[in-house]
């Protein structure tokens, strides 16, 4: 079973001072899938991400990654195991160039990060790969631009590239297309698709067009617990999902195009 599922949660619960944000969630993410987590605002999606990456400690429950219990690991250790997230609110290193942003991510695999005696030139060999990643999100020309100066949408693209640089086994994306216009969304979809080759993606996304195009499996979260799970078609036809989340089919259909 551990072969089939990369990630599994058992009875995951998170309470905030009496308020239950995540309520007994049993999630199974199949290897190689792009798995979407959707649900109304405040359903607990981001909180689930926070629990998975230990930005918040779970109140109860266990998290299994490749069959191993990672509930007690720290954030950084989880990232090193291959579970990497992007943030809902853009997270970059503002006073580094786009290229340096990505290089910091690549560097964490080099095993030289404690080498305070080495010259910075030793990092130049990573530049090639940085440029590839930047190119994949269309930021080539901004490689030497300081990140603060990038528009919001580009910051998000950069963040995605940085996350990909981590070569994660399981990629957690929190609303990757948020704040992006049509063409950029397209590109991100492509990017995620490309990135998903050979790895597993768990994403939160409100753009149903993206979800329907990309995702193999969808879990709907509402008020902290799992409402239903299945393929896009099943889920989108579920009246409960329509009621709490999707609303009238109209908007959705248009978005899908």
């Amino acid at each position, binding site marked *: 079973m551990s072969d089939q599922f990369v990630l599994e949660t058992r009875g995951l619960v998170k309470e905030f001072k009496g308020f239950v944000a995540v309520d007994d969630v049993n999630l199974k993410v199949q290897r190689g899938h792009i798995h979407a987590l959707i649900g109304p605002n405040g359903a607990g999606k981001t909180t689930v991400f926070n629990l998975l*990456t230990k*930005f918040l400690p779970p109140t109860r429950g266990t998290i299994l990654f490749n069959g191993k219990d990672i509930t007690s690991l*720290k*954030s*950084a*250790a989880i*990232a*090193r195991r291959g579970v*990497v*997230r992007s*943030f809902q609110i853009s*997270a*970059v*290193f*503002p*006073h*580094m160039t786009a*290229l*340096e942003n990505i*290089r*910091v*991510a690549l*560097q*964490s695999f*080099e095993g*030289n*990060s*404690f*080498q*305070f*005696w*080495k*010259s*910075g*030139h*030793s*990092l*130049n060999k990573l*530049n*090639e790969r940085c*440029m590839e990643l930047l*190119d994949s999100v*269309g930021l*080539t*020309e901004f*490689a*030497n631009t300081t990140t603060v100066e990038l528009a919001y949408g580009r910051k998000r693209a950069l963040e995605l590239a*940085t996350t990909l640089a*981590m070569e994660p086994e399981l990629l957690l994306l929190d609303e990757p297309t948020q704040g992006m216009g049509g*063409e950029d969304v397209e590109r991100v979809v492509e990017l995620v698709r490309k990135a998903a080759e050979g790895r597993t993606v768990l994403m939160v996304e409100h753009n149903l067009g993206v979800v329907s195009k990309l995702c193999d499996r969808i879990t709907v979260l509402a008020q902290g617990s799992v409402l239903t799970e299945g393929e896009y078609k099943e889920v989108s036809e579920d009246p409960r999902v329509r009621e709490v989340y999707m609303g009238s089919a109209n908007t959705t259909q248009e978005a899908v195009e």
Partner: protein
Amino acid sequence: MDHPVNQTDIQQAMLDQQKSDQRRKHILNLVLLALLLIAPAVIYPVFLMKILCFALFAVAFNLLLGFTGLLSFGHAAFLATGSYTTGYLLSNYSGLTTEMGIIVGTAAATVLGVLFALVAIRRQGIYFAMITLALAQLVYFMFVQAPFTGGEDGMHGVPRGHLFGFIDLENNLAMYYFVLAVFLGGYLLVQRVVGSPFGQVLKAIKQNEPRAVSLGYNVNQYKVLAFVMSAGLAGLAGSVKTVVFQLASLNDAHWHMSGEVILMTLLGGTGTLLGPVVGATFVVNLEYQLSQGPLGDWVDPILGAIFVLTVIAFRSGIVGEIQKFVRKNMG
């Protein structure tokens, strides 16, 4: 969207930039080195040594503030620990060569740095500053109470001794070149560290800590290492200072000293390598000039006014502003 610029061009441009930066840095370093080598011919060596000691202290401090984003308000503790340890050893064990005294003093400060770091590192921002201050106050209390420090009177008459057992440091020039060597060692170390892969991670942590965590960095380990290095170098500054002045006093441990190094660093320019050096030179010199002259009793108000002016008009510090100016007028 099309990409008007070619990937390799961009990379090349970046490498060129790096190279020319490097070259400029080398030239600057050489000019400064030359100045420092001939300085004692013109300027009173003990005074120069004082500047170098404080410059080293500020450089050490800036490794934390400028390059890791941690504001320590307790760095006096390390300066004083280096200072007292070396002072005690050299006064009481006459067989000890000077450099051994300094090494042990530095080591003591480093160990103290580890202790501080372990306690403080989990705290952030102003809490970090305050917990380091609190720890430093406790260290201060210890130094006040401990019999070997001479309390308020201080520790006096520390012999300068012989470097490696044969170079007589009573000679001011010999002493000067030794201090210069130590200073350069510290400075170059920090320069290296900042540019190293480790330095990149520090920079990342400074700018966005949660993001660094999510990229798999155990940020506390990096911070601890940076902190300990900074503490060790501050201790080194203290040790050398004791040898130069042949005394150690509570002033080194007082929170004013922790404040002073912040001021030096900010005045010179945080996050620049040369900034703390310039800042230390400026402050030490200014205090000296003012305390000598007819404005003797106006030192504090004048210093105060300079701080105010700096913050209002030259926020990036002396070196920072110069860099800005150069960048603006050359590119």
